[in-house]
């Protein structure tokens, strides 16, 4: 979807156009889901949190200003923080090897899912900011400038974060080998 189309949808949704609102939710659901997928322990949590992001965004859409993508990911990030605080699961998430076995067992033989799980496990050893940069850059495919906008940091800081995050992630893969 082009920026022009996206901005048009946002304007219509703000005016109460249900169709535009539905389209926006569908568009961002996948993006937010992928962002959260690599940060929580199981698919159900990722789906529930994504729904929560959509609902919170719909409620607050009238007051949205600036980049819609940055705004949505900020909501997702806030909801994730609340989620960790609520469940005190940060430690559990850091040890993702032991969790969600049922989900992966169910998809035994699905190579994609195994690779995704592996990345999920490695990411857990990175800082929150490094995780954000990796997911936004390589999973979501955002440019450095867009990531800077989403995370509210200067582009230089994002480049530095990106370098350190990639190096740290590579170390995790090397450790495994």
């Amino acid at each position, binding site marked *: 979807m082009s920026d022009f189309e996206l901005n048009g949808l946002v304007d219509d949704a703000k005016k109460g156009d249900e169709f535009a609102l539905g389209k926006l939710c569908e568009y961002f659901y*996948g993006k937010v889901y992928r962002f959260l997928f690599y940060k929580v322990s199981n698919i159900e949590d990722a789906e529930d949190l994504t729904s929560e992001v959509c609902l919170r965004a719909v409620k607050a859409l*009238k007051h949205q200003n600036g980049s819609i993508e940055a705004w949505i990911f900020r909501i997702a990030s806030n909801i994730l923080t609340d989620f960790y605080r609520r469940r005190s699961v940060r430690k559990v998430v850091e040890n993702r090897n032991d969790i969600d076995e049922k989900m992966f067992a169910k998809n035994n033989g699905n190579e994609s899912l195994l690779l*995704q799980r592996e990345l999920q496990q490695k990411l857990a050893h990175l800082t929150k900011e490094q995780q954000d940069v990796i997911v936004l850059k390589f999973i979501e495919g955002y*440019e450095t400038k867009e990531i800077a906008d989403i995370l509210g940091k200067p582009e230089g800081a994002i*480049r530095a974060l990106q370098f350190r995050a990639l190096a740290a992630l590579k170390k995790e893969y090397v450790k495994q080998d």
Partner: protein
Amino acid sequence: MSNEIENILDICLDELKAGTDIEILLMRYPDHAAELKPLLGLALEMNQLPKPKPSQEKISETLVKVGKEVSKGYRRPKRSFRDVFLWQPKLAWVTSGIFALILTVLTMSTLSANSAPGDLLYPIKLATEKVKFILTFNSESKAELRLTFSEERLNEMLDISQQSGTIDTLLLKSMLIQAQLALEQGEISDEKALPFLNKLQNVNNYQKKTLQNLRPSVDSSSRIILDRAIETCGMRERWLVQIINEETIQNSNTVPPTPKPKQIGKKQWQWGPGCGCN
């Protein structure tokens, strides 16, 4: 140095995403090739990693939730007065107009309360009295209002006579008519009949005495008019005494009836013969 590798990595990542081969990129930056190679390799793997897909069922569930949320509040947001006026400027104008009208009417009626015949605001005073009368629905209150108007006309007439030494016959006539209409206004309940007659008698006596006091200070032609009015008040006084006596006797002889709260008696009178004020 550190900044340089971060910038080079960023450029390489963009090119990698665009489809440039890793080897070509490494050849461009031979000094950093060793450091860049594993990072670009990892980046390429991640770029090629299939993206997690949410279940369609969950997306639909969320859309239903969003729909419910929309129907709850988003579609019809609670609007503040400011918002309503912001979106409907016509309504703002109409409301402001109504407020301005109410304010003007209240101001004018307050200012006109003490006006005298001939004043610019006097017609507003009369109009306000009419509106008050129309907006009063209880016949007893209407009768009270008639008495108030009658007293008001007397005061106005006194003011004019003090200034000019003549009698305003229209005001005098209006005073007498309002008092007459007060009695004929409508039905008055049994329990309020005697107090109302007493009040009417007091007003009538006061008007008669005031006219008598006024008589020496006016010219001869006005005196003739005053005499007729005083005579009318006198006749009314006698008639009222008679009626009040009858009411008093009737009340004292009446054995307390069985309570019938919904059948309260009503009284209505007409001035006796010769009590007209023409």
